[in-house]
């Protein structure tokens, strides 16, 4: 079977998607992803020359906009209600630059 992604690729993807995988998981994920990607092959073999893509299955619907009018939203309490950690009415997070936290 074709190797679409290597374990190294999978590690990169895991880093990008911010999901920690241990070594066994990396191995299994590499196998699974290659299986799935291989099954997507038909899409790469189609003659799609000149076919316009349909990004939105909504017919001719376009230009959907709302008026610039204020609508009540959350109170501060509601906004923070589900926060795993908070401080001074803000969401609290640990050090961004701690480890690979650079933008």
């Amino acid at each position, binding site marked *: 079977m074709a190797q679409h992604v290597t374990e190294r690729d999978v590690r990169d993807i895991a880093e990008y998607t911010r999901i920690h995988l241990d070594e066994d998981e990396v191995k299994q994920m590499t196998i699974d992803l290659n299986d799935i990607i291989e099954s997507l092959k038909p899409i790469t073999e189609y003659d799609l020359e000149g076919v316009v893509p349909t990004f939105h299955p909504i017919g001719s619907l376009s*230009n959907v906009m709302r008026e*610039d*009018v204020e*609508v009540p939203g959350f109170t*501060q309490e509601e906004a923070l209600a589900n926060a795993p950690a908070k401080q001074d009415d803000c*969401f*609290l*997070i640990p050090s961004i630059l701690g480890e690979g936290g650079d*933008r």
Partner: protein
Amino acid sequence: MKTMEEVLQDWEAVIGLEIHCELTKLQTKMFCGCKLEFGAEPNTHTCPVCLGMPGALPVPNKGAIENIVLAGLATNCDIEKHTMFYRKGYMYPDMAKNFQTTQGPKAFCMRGWLDLNVDGRGAQERLFWQDLAEGETAENITRTADGYVAHVGITRIHMEEDAGKMVHIGGGEGRITGATHSLVDYNRAGTPLMELVTEPDLRTPEEARLFMQKLRQIFLTLGISDCSMEEGSLRADGNISLRRRGTTEFGTKTEMKNINSFKALHDALAYEICRQAEVLEEGGQIYQETRHWDPSKKHTVVMRVKETADDYRMFPDPDLAPYDLSDEFIERVRGMLPELPDQKAARFAADYGLSAYDARHLVDHRFSADFFEAACAAAGDRAGELAKPLANLTLNDITAYVNANEGIDFATTPLTPERAVQLVSLLAADEISSKQAKEVFAAVLEEDKDPHAIVEERGMKQVSDTGAIEAVINEVLAANPDKVEQYKGGKTGLIGFFVGQCMKAMKGQGNPKLINEMLAKKLG
């Protein structure tokens, strides 16, 4: 390090700008009905949409789309009718959805331009324009009477949303470096944000500064943003690279992020030109990196090295219907366009006979243009005759005063347009001398009174009554027969003595011009 002037002899700087502008004049955010308000209590203007709660969906603000089309029309852009919003993915805690909703390859506004008038000292940063004859064009510049016009391309202006704000705690001076934790406030998240990208057409820090200034003036005129660089509603990123003069390939560029004043933009680019030249001349290499301008230390430092191109996993946002703007929509927005600064300058020149230079500098600041116009209106029938002195008063005295006094602007100075008209009228009618005019100007500002009242109170009205002047002249001549003899004998320099004696006798209120004329006549 060499000075920038020295560096630019050998190197050409290639500068492009990315300018972010929040649409602060709108009532609500880009994709939800939350109120736009700067400085509110943290997390008091949020909802499921801008907080990225599970299941929430965006709906674009029509006012924001109108605003960006306005901005595009005002900067000579083509309005792209068929566009889509895209999702630009990156995980960062100030982005509630961990993707930014922005536009893809096609933005609402494409292929625009602005012409910059560069004159005075700023023009000296660019080389060789003096070699051109007036009206002659080379590269993207055209020589004018007192400088040059630079034609600067605008690649695109796209619509997107701003991120939330973070406060970093535990590091020095609120910096992210060394911080042990951070606090996130999503009030700003989802604020409608325009990003304008220029072509790499700018060649000097001054041109970059002028572009930014002109753009700010246009956006202020359009009334779409308060364009406060201090509060971050107008922000500039500058890209800059150097190449040897005479070559055409681009060098490696560095990016200066989030510059928050015109001066900082100029100085950061100027510093970067010198730094890059030094590195290159020592045989070093410029790395593609993001640098931060530290205004207190007057240098740039590396924020982040870009090893590979960012991969944002962009794709069309399935939650947002595509745009298919109609001609009708675009024309309706065009109808909302106010008079733009360039148009205003042309009108000032045509209607009031101002020089192109004066007209341009009057409209450099909306308030000075407004003041000048209000004064002309107050002058009524005499606007044509008083326009030139009113322009001078506005450009020189009032501008200097406003600049020197924090908290005072054209709208709040005691010198109202009406008082300005009084002042220049007094001068034009020779009722006060130009020296007295300065005194009256200062007194108006200090005492908040009409110029007429000040002249009256101080009894400083210039005497132009020929009968009164003649009487004084006669007295002075009679008291100095010897000097009269000498004058008639050829010592015509004595005229100054006679004028001085007359002015002294008239306590400084005589019209010096009249006295001169009449003395000359009398002494034959």
